[in-house]
């Protein structure tokens, strides 16, 4: 009798689950859309929302049009590339964090842990010091980020395989090596020219965003993200115990490095155009897990939308809260750290409770 009642209840449970997911995703998408439009409107020169929407429509339907009026130029040339870049970067970082936490079976790791951010920072600092700008600088940042991952791979590979814990520790080692060199570069940099540029860039900012920079970062972010999205079910498998994953046909070692490579592409592209932005990769996946659960098939898209929305909001705050721009890294840490502390306490309270 009880079994019968449960059999009938099962589809209802499933329907309730589906309804909840739909609700959460529409909420997240609304949040992102609102943040996007508000960000285009606010600033030193305010634009009414209706006009902003009209301008987006005009810009999207006829991108090569002559931009005559001042509000057109501000919205489409200054704010729009910045908002799009912020959204892409936030989405990429959150996605990388979610994937990495799954692969490491550890909810506390983030893209910084593999040394990608610090490696990329080294390339950027060196480039700025040598007076390189534009595309060469960006490729340098990207390559040094990749170099950091390769280095982590070489150090952690012992007897033909790399254990999770050695990967994390090697990441730490490579990270501190690169950050020491970055400090050295700052020490010897010219305090009148390159030092402020390096420091500002290290703290992360979208202030320099242009369509050109957005287009440089976009391919890496989108291609890396698309591949991670295709791997969403595989990430479920990789998040299992090593032996279980292998018994299901996964080449765990090789596939894990494939995920690391994709994350290096994403984070490298992001750091190249907007400097180091911490915390997104750890706070957003956690919040998304609370909303949609741990299954990567739902977690990845939720992280993308929430990460994009959150990054746009943070960036809008960064440029409007005070007369001068506040570095992004400062705000993400100020907002992210307390949220993370709260999540951490809730996580362990719940675990001890059950």
């Amino acid at each position: 009798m009880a079994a019968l009642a449960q059999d009938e209840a099962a589809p209802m449970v499933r329907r309730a689950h589906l309804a909840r997911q739909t609700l959460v995703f529409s909420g997240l998408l609304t949040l992102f859309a609102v943040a996007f439009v508000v960000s285009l409107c606010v600033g030193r020169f305010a634009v009414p929302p209706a006009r902003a929407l009209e301008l987006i429509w005009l810009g999207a339907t006829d991108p090569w049009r002559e931009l005559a009026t001042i509000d057109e130029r501000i919205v489409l040339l200054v704010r729009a590339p910045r908002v799009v870049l912020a959204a892409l970067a936030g989405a990429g970082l959150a996605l990388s964090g979610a994937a990495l936490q799954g692969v490491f079976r550890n909810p506390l790791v983030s893209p910084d842990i593999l040394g990608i951010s610090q490696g990329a920072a080294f390339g950027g600092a060196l480039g700025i010091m040598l007076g390189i700008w534009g595309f060469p600088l960006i490729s340098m940042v990207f390559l040094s980020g990749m170099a950091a991952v390769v280095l982590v791979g070489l150090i952690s590979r012992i007897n033909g395989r790399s254990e999770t814990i050695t990967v994390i520790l090697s990441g730490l080692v490579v990270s501190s090596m690169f950050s020491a060199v970055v400090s050295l570069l700052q020490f010897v940099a010219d305090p009148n020219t390159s030092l402020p540029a390096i420091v500002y860039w290290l703290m992360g900012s979208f202030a320099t965003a242009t369509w050109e920079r957005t287009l440089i970062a976009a391919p890496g972010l989108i291609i890396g993200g698309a591949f991670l999205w295709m791997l969403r079910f595989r990430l479920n498998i990789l998040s299992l115990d090593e032996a279980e994953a292998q018994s299901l046909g996964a080449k765990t070692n090789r596939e894990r490095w494939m995920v690391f490579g994709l994350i290096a592409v994403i984070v490298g592209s992001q750091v190249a155009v907007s400097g180091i932005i911490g915390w997104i990769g750890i706070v957003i996946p956690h919040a998304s897990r609370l909303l949609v659960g741990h299954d990567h098939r739902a977690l990845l898209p939720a992280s993308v939308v929430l990460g994009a929305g959150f990054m746009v909001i943070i960036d809008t705050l960064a440029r409007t809260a005070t007369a001068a721009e506040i570095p992004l890294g400062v705000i993400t840490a100020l907002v992210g750290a307390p949220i993370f502390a709260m999540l951490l306490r809730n996580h362990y309270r719940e675990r001890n409770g059950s």
Partner: protein
Amino acid sequence: MIGLENATVRFGPRTIIEGLSFSVPVGRTLAILGPNGRGKTTTLKAMLGFQPLDAGRRVAPDIVGYVPQTGTSNQRYRALDVVVMGRAAHLGIFGQPGAEDFQIAHSALERAGAARFADHYFDRLSGGERQLVLLAGAIATGSQVLVLDEPAAALDLHNQERLLTLLNTLRQPRDKAIVFTTHDPNHALSSADDALLMMPGGQPLFGRVAETITPQHLENLYGVPMRVVELAGPSGETHQAVLPAFAGIRAA
């Protein structure tokens, strides 16, 4: 069909198994018996291909339905999603499970008697319930070979009985090769055709249950005097049961 041929595994200077050969054809069930630390788990891992062999050969199909002792992910998945992961080997690295895979997962849950947990969170289930879900996952792989690591180790008597009954229903159609490890010879008597005894001194004994599960062999195996008694089952037939000599003696 799954098995090892002349397999040797060493951990540094220690030889865990040496020249071990056995095979389990489709339709038969093997119980691997032995006290702790005699290489039961190593044998299992070698058979599954997780443990590289220092010598010898492993015979196994590409996909083996493996039932670990406990699911050890810290991720929170629904039981149905855990079972559907059993389909991974058929989907490839970029594949996504479709309606058909969920259908297979559902019927696997039903075969394992765990259909009522389908929508529960796996990490909220009890040890015995998780075991059933993991078994469903192994069935969902569609492999002809099932390998269970100490399936009854963490179960109370009631759940042991349920698990053994379930194993016997899976055995019945004789369309699978099943291997499980256990430290209780009674599990071998009730649910296996063959037994592999991990004897002290490294000379394992492999053969039919009737020939291997005898008091002498078991005394050798565990270092405890053993008795085999015949008991009347619930419907009148006789069952064999193995008891260590200290069982059935009332403490003064």
